């Protein structure tokens, strides 16, 4: 399976709020960041949590968000960032920026 995104791609975390064992932090939903690395390929923990041990293997991306993009009223340095590990099923290309 080939990775949908590469280092440097701008990606958006899907803005969706499903119930259950969900592994994309709430504060990242709908936010845009940049792929800074691929942390490996792992079975989807959202399957594993329900005993589905033969589910799909997903790329796990390291996505860097500007803190000022995550929080409108962020109090801190202008360069501050958060890098979050996000599985591919949660990412979509930023409008016009995908491959």
């Amino acid at each position, binding site marked *: 399976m080939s990775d949908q995104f590469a280092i440097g791609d701008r990606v958006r975390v899907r803005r969706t709020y499903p119930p259950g064992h969900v592994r994309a932090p709430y504060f990242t939903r709908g936010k845009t960041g940049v792929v800074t690395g691929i942390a490996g390929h792992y079975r989807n923990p959202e399957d594993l949590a329900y005993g589905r041990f033969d589910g799909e293997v997903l790329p796990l991306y390291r996505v860097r968000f500007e803190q000022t993009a*995550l*929080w409108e009223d962020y109090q801190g*340095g202008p360069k*501050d960032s958060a890098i979050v*590990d*996000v599985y591919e099923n949660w990412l979509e290309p930023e409008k016009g920026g995908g491959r």
Partner: protein
Amino acid sequence: MSSPDEHVHEHDHDHDHDRTFQPDIEDSPYSHYQVMAQALGEILIDKGIITADELREQIEAQDSRNPAEGAKLIARAWTDPEFKERFMADVNAAAESVGVPAGDIPIRAVENTPDVHNVIVCTLCSCYPRGLLGVPPDWYKSRAYRSRTVREPRAVLSEFGTDLPDDLEVRVHDSTADLRYIVLPMRPEGTESMDEAALEALVSRDCMIGVSLPRNPKA
């Protein structure tokens, strides 16, 4: 004040023990997950999948890990550029090569520089590089640390006594997935003459989480 001779111990004390009773942790009701964890352990033992001694042994093994293991790797990375390269590429393999078993969960090192300060949190649970740092401190698992470290990292760092310049990038790593992270702090100035063992003593658990900096030997 009465002397020991005057305080004769009899079964019918006249002071009331109920009034001096201090509640223990066990006195609060079991939570759902405590019951489930207890039940799972008992079922695995009843079915013969693990023994009680194996369960105890695992707890003992987990509890025996401590931040000195991580500090050893940091001091080595400070003094041995070739090791540092391997450490940054693959922490688990580098650790194994110097006799520190880091476990199977992949651990990645993030390096502090004059421009970037790294701090680790797991917002969704409490993932922690136990193989290198041992059992996490209670605050690391608290909702306050997990929510505030992504929301206002500099305020959290300041409460740990770590104040950083505004033009430096504070980089929060949210390890909510399959990797664990450890911070490679900057080697303090004035430590050029120190050997690896002396450097290890400067590396605290908290500076490998990123809420603190290595001890300054001059301070």
